[in-house]
């Protein structure tokens, strides 16, 4: 059975969610600039942009997060941890590409070898209400990256915009708990059909023709290729592509300390900055943008597949759209696939 949520009930629905959950959804910070934020009033929620600037990962893995605070008074030391999540959470409006990315970094933060309590606690407490992508943009290539504009994996509920209402699919156990939600009504056959049409149209728009098969193996042989020197040339070495990437997950831990108190904070970090790999001695094993650009591409298309058996890119297109110099990772992928390797000469 499928459900629908009338748009006139949308705000009351959000209001009711907020009684039980902390609600996270896209909020517009300025015209055309939006991020996920904890919602205080349903009015703040803005689903008009097709994707936010900062990706959904931020809800689980904030750009700057206090891990614990400490204070010394006399001979007393007090340490306060911040790992607990007090209330259940809902993310609303996440796009399938961002949700794919969350599944991907789940493997890093709650993998076999290591569990990151800060991430995992938030992740466990969260229900994801995905928003099907009815208008994929031209820089999007989710269909080439094992996803798609209506990809359902990872969503607990999926909303499909029908104009006057949302069609609601309950996809997991967490999702099924919404079955008795008073704002959900049974969807009519014609609404289900119309959702199918929207899905077909959107899926057609992302053709999935980017040639990624075998890229990991090619990169195995390209560590010292002159390719990196050339491809990095126009990159100015900022961090936009890594910070706005839904799968990039590097961080740096620092102590923000005063004389008798302080806090340990972890902040997003980026392999494209020189400081990232600089050692205490001053030596930097990745001294130029060549090594740093190579690292960015290698991590996504070679190291991550080696460790987790899939490419660390979901094709959301953010790094293409927001790059100040129009570095286009699709072109990079094609060039890697077309390059002539040593053994092919």
């Amino acid at each position, binding site marked *: 059975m499928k459900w629908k949520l009338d748009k006139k009930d949308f705000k009351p629905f959000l209001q009711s969610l907020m009684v039980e959950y902390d609600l996270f959804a896209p909020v517009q910070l300025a015209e055309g600039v939006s991020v996920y934020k904890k919602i205080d009033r349903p009015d703040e929620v803005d689903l008009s942009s097709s994707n936010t600037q900062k990706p959904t990962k931020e809800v689980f893995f904030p750009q700057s997060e206090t891990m614990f605070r400490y204070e010394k008074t006399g001979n007393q030391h007090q340490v306060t941890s911040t790992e607990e999540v007090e209330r259940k959470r809902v993310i609303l409006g996440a796009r399938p590409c961002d949700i794919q990315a969350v599944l991907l970094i789940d493997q890093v933060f709650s993998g076999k070898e290591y569990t990151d309590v800060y991430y995992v606690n938030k992740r466990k407490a969260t229900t994801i209400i995905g928003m099907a992508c009815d208008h994929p943009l031209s820089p999007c290539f989710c269909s080439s990256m094992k996803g798609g504009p209506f990809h359902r994996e990872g969503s607990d509920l999926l909303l499909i915009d029908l104009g006057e209402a949302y069609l609601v699919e309950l996809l997991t156990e967490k999702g099924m708990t919404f079955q008795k939600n008073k704002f959900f009504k049974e969807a009519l056959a014609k609404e289900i059909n119309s959702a199918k049409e929207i899905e077909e149209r959107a899926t057609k728009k992302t053709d999935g023709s980017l040639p990624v098969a075998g890229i990991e193996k090619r990169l195995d042989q390209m560590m010292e290729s002159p390719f990196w020197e050339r491809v990095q040339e126009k990159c100015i070495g900022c961090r*936009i592509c890594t910070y706005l990437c839904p799968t990039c997950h590097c961080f740096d831990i620092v102590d923000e300390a005063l004389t008798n108190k302080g806090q340990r904070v972890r902040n997003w970090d980026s392999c494209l900055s020189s400081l990232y790999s600089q050692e205490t001695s001053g030596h930097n094993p990745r001294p130029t943008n060549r090594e740093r650009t190579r690292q960015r591409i290698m991590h996504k298309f070679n190291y991550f597949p080696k460790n987790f058996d899939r490419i660390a890119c979901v094709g959301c297109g953010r790094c293409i759209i927001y790059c100040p110099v129009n570095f286009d990772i699709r072109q990079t992928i094609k060039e890697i696939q077309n390059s002539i390797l040593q053994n092919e000469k």
Partner: protein
Amino acid sequence: MLSSEFVVRSKHINALNTELKTLNFSRAMIQEKIREKARELLSKKAVDLIIGFGEGSLPLRATPLFIRSLEETDRLIWNSFCENNLSTYLHKLSQFKVGLVVKGCDARSIIALSHEKRFKPDQLFLIGVPCQRMVDRRRVKKAVKGEILRAHEQGDQIIVEGEDFKTILKREDFLYPSCQGCIHRTPIKADVLVGDPVEEFPLIETYHEIEEFEKKSPEERWKFFEKESSRCIRCDACREACPMCYCAECFVDSSNPKWMEKGLSPQDLEFYHIVRAYHQTGRCSGCGACERACPMEIRLTYLTQKLNWDVKELFDFETGIDAETPPPLSTYEIEDKQEFIK
């Protein structure tokens, strides 16, 4: 804004009309001349590489292009989307002879960098382009509903097309703020000019935006600044896009002494933007590259333009206009005004 825009414009209405009529022609001619010059420089081995612009992979975009062989020169283009200040690349190319495509503002950055002895003599060959002002791609995107899939220019129009629409926009209504007020469009320093010098006039008064902003109360101004800087994600794109930001270690990255933390607290974000702007005093050409690079669309040039204006008022100095006069903050004279010390 309209009234002052009108006053300035009516003075130059004839110049503007002539310019609009010749836009198409001059863009094509400039592009051809850039390619010609690039071929000549490369074939004579006068330079190791040319940095210019190539076709972007998205509508309304061009992309910096690095060219080393004759065959590639036909990839060089010129249009209203060549928005980057390419002189920012020179810092990592000190061992090469570079042919660089520069607009008026970019050439000013080069002069400012020369004062700071960033180049060896004869290291650069500047291909100067009299600039027709650049189009603000975000402004265009916001003006139409739906995704723009194709865009091109025709005379004084920008024609944008999507799946089910075609819209014709007036180019002049979609220029970058820094370009609207520009009065140095013809490169002051260039080894060759690939186009006729343009008549220098602003479409809005250069510091009009700042003047309007200054009329607000200190509280309102601070609120605006707080709101703008709060969006910062510390990606450093403004710093990296700026040709004047080349410190071996930026104050942001220094850990000893540590000037600021690495998080997103308002005081750190505000501190960063104020210090970055102050470091540009008397050095900023007002090219707007910082603002164009910002993915969060922070109005960064409010700060830098205010400082540019102050430097003009206090020292009668504009960055990169004069290759002889040293920038006021890197020199002193006994007769300098000393009011600020009192």
